[in-house]
């Protein structure tokens, strides 16, 4: 029994009623490092080691966050950014998934499209920004296009990879047991490719935020990136730091949601058993 387990056991013996209310100490462990950083940062700011004009303190940023929340400004920007992210994810991820599936099951489809896609993949999608602004202006179309393009490739590649790596013995079993091609796809190919598709989704989510922030920083009149750029122009440092922290929180939230979804969908896998 490890020290932590001993401590938990001792505590639960003393006050069993608290057990359900308090989170287990080991569940809090991942947050220990961020909490320590925040505390050190606050102390450094309060004691004047770090000037407020270089890096505002956590308490200042929190106050700004509360004030902007109450005025509604924060949620307007947050909502706009989240909606753009989601739209890009659905469009880019959807196309990536469909092409991944069709290239995974059809030799002809792959021959026709894969080498083209590999060429496009090697262009950093952010390099297209000047062209995209000329095509779409600085409206929503430009951001949607960039986010969708960024999300497309990880989902396409991982869907294709997942389908390619299905155990051919299972397909043969399905055939021998009289499954139609549709049934083989639904009952063998898709569930078999799912772990890989989730990997693609998690990669895609990272690229989704990155692309959106860059796009919003360059040209927008709303959204988190716009909020940060406007604050920079007026030298409002706490808002700049706040938007950076919000990116971190949003990224973590999206990742946690995907992991929860993954645990649910892949509960058959030994890799997730008992977690």
């Amino acid at each position, binding site marked *: 029994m490890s020290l932590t387990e001993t401590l938990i056991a001792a505590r639960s013996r003393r006050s069993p009623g608290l057990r359900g209310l308090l989170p287990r100490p080991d569940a809090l462990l991942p947050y220990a490092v961020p909490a320590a950083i925040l505390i050190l940062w606050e102390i450094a700011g309060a004691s004047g080691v770090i000037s407020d004009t270089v890096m505002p303190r956590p308490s200042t940023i929190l106050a700004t966050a509360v004030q902007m929340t109450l005025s509604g400004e924060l949620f307007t920007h947050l909502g706009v950014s989240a909606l753009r992210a989601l739209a890009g994810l659905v469009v880019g991820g959807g196309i990536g998934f469909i092409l991944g599936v069709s290239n995974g099951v059809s030799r002809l489809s792959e021959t026709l499209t894969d080498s083209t896609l590999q060429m496009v993949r090697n262009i950093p999608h952010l390099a297209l920004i000047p062209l995209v602004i000329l095509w779409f202006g600085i409206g929503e179309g430009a951001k949607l296009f960039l986010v969708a393009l960024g999300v497309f490739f990880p989902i396409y590649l991982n869907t294709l990879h997942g389908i390619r790596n299905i155990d051919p*013995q299972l397909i*043969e*079993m399905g055939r021998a047991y009289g499954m139609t091609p549709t049934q083989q796809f639904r009952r063998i190919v898709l569930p078999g490719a799912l772990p890989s598709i989730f990997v693609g989704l998690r990669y895609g989510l990272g690229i989704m935020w990155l692309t959106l922030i860059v796009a919003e920083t360059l040209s927008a009149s709303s959204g988190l990136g716009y909020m940060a750029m406007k604050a920079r122009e007026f030298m409002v440092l706490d808002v700049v730091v706040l938007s950076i922290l919000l990116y971190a929180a949003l990224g973590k939230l999206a990742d946690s949601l995907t992991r929860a979804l993954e645990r649910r969908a892949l509960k058959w896998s030994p890799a997730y058993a008992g977690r």
Partner: protein
Amino acid sequence: MQAVELLPRDITVPPMLRDNRGAAVSIRNVTRSFEGNRVLSNLDLDVRPGEFLSIVGKSGCGKSTLLRLIAGLDQPSSGEVRIDDRPATQAGDKLRIMFQEPRLLPWANVADNVAVGLRQGPDPQAVTEALASVQLADKAGVWPALLSGGQRQRAALARALVSHPSLLVLDEPLGALDALTRLTMQNLIRDMHAKAGFTAILVTHDVAEAVALSDRVIVLGQGGILHHVEILRVGPTQRGSAELAAIEAEILDAIFAA
């Protein structure tokens, strides 16, 4: 000390007296070549309804190729395989195959995996019965990853038998199991065969297994059948008895003479 009886008692029922649901298999003049290399050459073989036939031979002798032709997973280069007077590829769910690996769907629980064997939609009653017959009734809701090797093969057997096939084709299904689990599985297969009366064709490299299970053993080699042995069982036969040992020796001689 009481001797452990390894073979079920009711195997003394001769094949022709069993519930006659077994399919007849007829293999006529079958040749199968791979890139000019003849694996099977003008092979003829008849399997009687309800018979348990084992195919043995050195590795590479074409026994798995022959089994895949019977199972309709492969086509002969010439000649034909007929099951109950229809081409093997049209056998549908009259024909079931058990592979060397369990080939269960990892993302479906045991009951859903067994239901794969039912073509006309889910039938919980049939699945429950099939699972009970392989002593897996308590594992219906379990993921295959949590089963032992023997339990996985039993689930695969339940999947093969849930549609009450008239021909069961077994491609070394016990090859990867440990010795004790093998014996239990052999008894289970023999027992199911005796009860349900399907025709069974087993490919194995274990001559003792072939002798313990079959009504007839054929030795395959040089593209054809080298040797036939009929095993007539009168009275409960003990594994390791002198008669069976003699038959085993005869088959091994035929394999090594090739």
